[in-house]
């Protein structure tokens, strides 16, 4: 190590002696506990806010679900599955597709 390097090492050693470990003030522990408690309060407030947010979101979901319910109920009230199927596939179409005999269909019409 060169001369400057040695001087720097010496300087660092002198620095430790120049800045000894300071004694904590009488207020150190009370102030620390005050900070711990204030952080705790912030955390509690955040937890409460989160709970309120989750509860609001759940309420909105339930409300939206309730609003969409009557619409689906009205379709169900229109009749059974077979009725709905028959309505959407008129007999003319079925006869044209050859699913039911054409003659039967004509006789029924008369």
């Amino acid at each position, binding site marked *: 190590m060169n001369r400057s390097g040695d001087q*720097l090492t010496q*300087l660092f050693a002198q620095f430790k002696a120049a800045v000894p470990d300071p004694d*904590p003030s009488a207020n150190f522990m009370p102030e620390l506990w005050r*900070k711990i408690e204030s952080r705790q309060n912030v955390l509690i407030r955040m937890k409460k806010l989160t709970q309120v947010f989750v509860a609001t979101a759940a309420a909105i979901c339930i409300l939206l679900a309730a609003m969409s319910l009557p619409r689906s109920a009205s379709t169900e009230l229109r009749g059974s599955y077979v009725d709905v199927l028959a309505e959407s596939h008129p007999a003319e179409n079925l006869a044209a597709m050859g699913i039911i005999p054409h003659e039967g269909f004509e006789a029924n019409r008369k």
Partner: protein
Amino acid sequence: MLVEFEQIQKAQAGDDVAFNQVVAAYRKRILGTIARLIGRPEDVEDVAQEVFLRLYYSLDQLRTPEVFEPWLYRLTVNASYDYLRKQRRRNEARMSDLSEQQVMMADASAGGKASSEADRQKQVKDLVDSLLSSVSEQDRILLTLKEVEGLSLKELEKIYSVNENALKVRLFRARQRVLNVYETSKKRTGKSGQNKSQLE
């Protein structure tokens, strides 16, 4: 270890009395390390309280009490780093190179010309503080822990969780940078000293 493992375990379990005992055992050492890391006596207690605050809220994450000390040092390093970063933002204009006066005063102190011990200590403190401000906050902390606090590479390895070779390289570069600033300032001071003596 300055406290028994049992006390740390009690503090982990939420025993505030045990936590107080742990803080009381370590606070002087932590205050000293922070004082030498940040170089601002007025803010040392605030940073130390931040360290113990972080300790309180993360104590449950400590897996084994054996690694408590390196872990506490890591919290100290992180809190000091956060402080230095904020400080740099507040005070961007701070000089990174040494003033001639500081180097001359340090030289005088080395030669025993300082007016008193307190003055000499203040000069050394200001000089080292200025030298360390020529490197990044991370390097300043690393260099202080190694050169001033006297931590071994093994201890630093545990604190930083990086391998010894990476630390050696980083330390070497940081020290070289500080040494260059020191030598440059000394040369400049030498020249200005010569000029002054010629004028006289």
